[in-house]
């Protein structure tokens, strides 16, 4: 029924939480999933150029039906301000900005197959899995209706344009490398054992990231495993950032004095040579 799970080649060690039933037994065990990250703390220092994380995991008791694994990593929520370019008298101008109160600052989805083959639209939408289904808090004056057979579709004062604005947020974030979908990002390296690589660009903000590993079977999510990733500043990066944000006026003065000193030193040095 289930292929034997070999010991993983790398930490983390997996604990086989179920013994394989001997022979054709009626007892049905629910599929479960286990996953761990090679690194759950990312340190941002002055040489930080992004980070790559490897997520390892195993599927237990998958039963006879094929299973799919979907990994979602979300960054901290941040507001997004979006403007639309409109042509006025031959000039391209910005419309009033629309503020989306909360959208993940970073979103990566990796799966074993294209999402549309794994589960239906409604299931994915409810779970917020996939670029098309990222939960983005709509602008003010919103209401929710049932649309296209899907519950809880948000309609705001943007009206029918709402979807276009929403897609623009995702498209622009994708262009900046902050949103990504990789339908082949999760690979089974051995029966039951999978691996995914998550790349954080340096533009991804610091904060707490949530990694969700979903196990899908027959179009439904049957198990989930959640982990957190901390991205934090260390050393001089942390010190400078705190200085700039907690003592901004002093920081400004120090910046100016440093600049004046640099200019003075250069002038002195050049006069002598």
């Amino acid at each position, binding site marked *: 029924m289930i292929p034997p799970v070999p010991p993983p080649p790398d930490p983390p060690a997996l604990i086989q939480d179920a013994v394989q039933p001997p022979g054709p037994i009626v007892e049905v065990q629910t599929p479960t999933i286990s996953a761990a990250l*090679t690194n759950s703390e*990312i340190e*941002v*220092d*002055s*040489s*930080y*150029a*992004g*980070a*790559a*994380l490897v997520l390892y995991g195993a599927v237990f008791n998958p039963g006879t039906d094929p299973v799919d694994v979907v990994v979602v990593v979300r960054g901290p929520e*941040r*507001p*997004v*301000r*979006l*403007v639309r*370019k409109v*042509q006025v008298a031959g*000039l*391209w*101008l*910005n*419309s*009033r*900005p629309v503020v*989306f109160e909360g*959208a993940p600052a970073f979103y990566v989805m990796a799966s074993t197959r294209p999402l549309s083959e794994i589960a239906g639209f409604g299931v994915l939408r409810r779970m917020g899995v996939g670029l098309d289904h990222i939960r983005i808090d709509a602008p003010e004056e919103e209401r929710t209706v049932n649309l296209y057979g899907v519950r809880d579709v948000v309609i705001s004062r943007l009206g029918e344009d709402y979807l276009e*604005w929403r897609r623009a*947020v995702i*498209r*622009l*974030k994708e*262009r*900046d490398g902050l949103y990504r979908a990789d339908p082949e990002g999760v690979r089974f390296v051995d029966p039951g054992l999978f691996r995914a690589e998550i*790349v954080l660009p*340096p*533009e991804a*903000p610091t904060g707490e990231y949530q990694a969700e590993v979903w196990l899908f079977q027959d179009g439904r999510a049957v198990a989930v495993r959640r982990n957190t990733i901390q991205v934090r500043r260390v050393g*001089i*990066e942390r010190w400078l*950032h705190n200085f*700039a944000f907690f003592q*901004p006026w002093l*920081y*400004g003065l*120090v*910046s*100016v004095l*440093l*600049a004046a000193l*640099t*200019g*003075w*030193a*250069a*002038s002195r040095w*050049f*006069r002598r040579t």
Partner: protein
Amino acid sequence: MAATVSARTVDVYLPIAEVSVNAPLLLALGGLVGFISGLFGIGGGFLMAPVLVFMGIPPAVAVASQANHVVASSTSSVLTYSRAGSVDYRMGAIMAVGGALGALVGVELFRILRLLGQADLVVAVSYLLLLGSIGALTLRESLSTILQRRRGEPARREPARRPLWLYGLPFRMRFPRSGLYISAIPPLALGVFAGILSAIMGVGGGFILVPAMVYVLRMRAAVVVGTSLFQILITTAVTTVLQAGRNQTVDIVLSTLLMIGGVLGAQYGARMSARFRADEMRAALGLLILLVGLQMGLSLFLRPDDPFALAPGGGG
């Protein structure tokens, strides 16, 4: 297991801009802009802001951090000009008071414009109108001077064409170094204007100040560049403190990288300036200003690649 992407050792992560950039490239950019700054007696910010934004640095951080870079390069230049006796500190101080007031207004104005999503538009229009017109005027004037010189015609002297209203205003002061006895109001107003530009466009305002000092105030040519740099120094220092205090947009790592290249470049520029004829320098500066203005303004007329854009200030 290693988690950090193998970083090229020359890349440095900027703490405020929150991007990773190539350090030698920033040093070179600072050096080039510093050289132009020392050569023409301008801050050079109008060149640097577009390049920094192109490199992926958020515009607000680029504008504020380069103001700090201009502090360093102009300090270095002012000291050089000062030794040659070509800074009118009295004129410069009055313009700097105006500059500080203008920076106060400009930083607030820029905040409001960003919230309205119109900062891009105002920056593009400012670049197009100001740089375009000043570049064109400077170019035309200097080319006609050069042509006259080539034809062997005597240079037209027009000292009496100083606008009359300069004399009609109150608060007249003597500016011995500039060879002027005029009201303090025009230099103050000029300073206010440069201060606003400093905050909005991230420029020192030298490209406005130098022509205005030459053609409107008719200051003695020898002190124009040094005095304009002195006013730029004070204005950008005030702008830096205000941007850091109000908006937290000054990236000290970015500005330090720019200024190391900048001060070296500015020294060479200030020395080289003596080797060229004034009219040829003005022609080159005019052309440069015109091109940057047109390039920035072009964005207003071209269909954008994407009808939507993320506005700064949303944290995203």
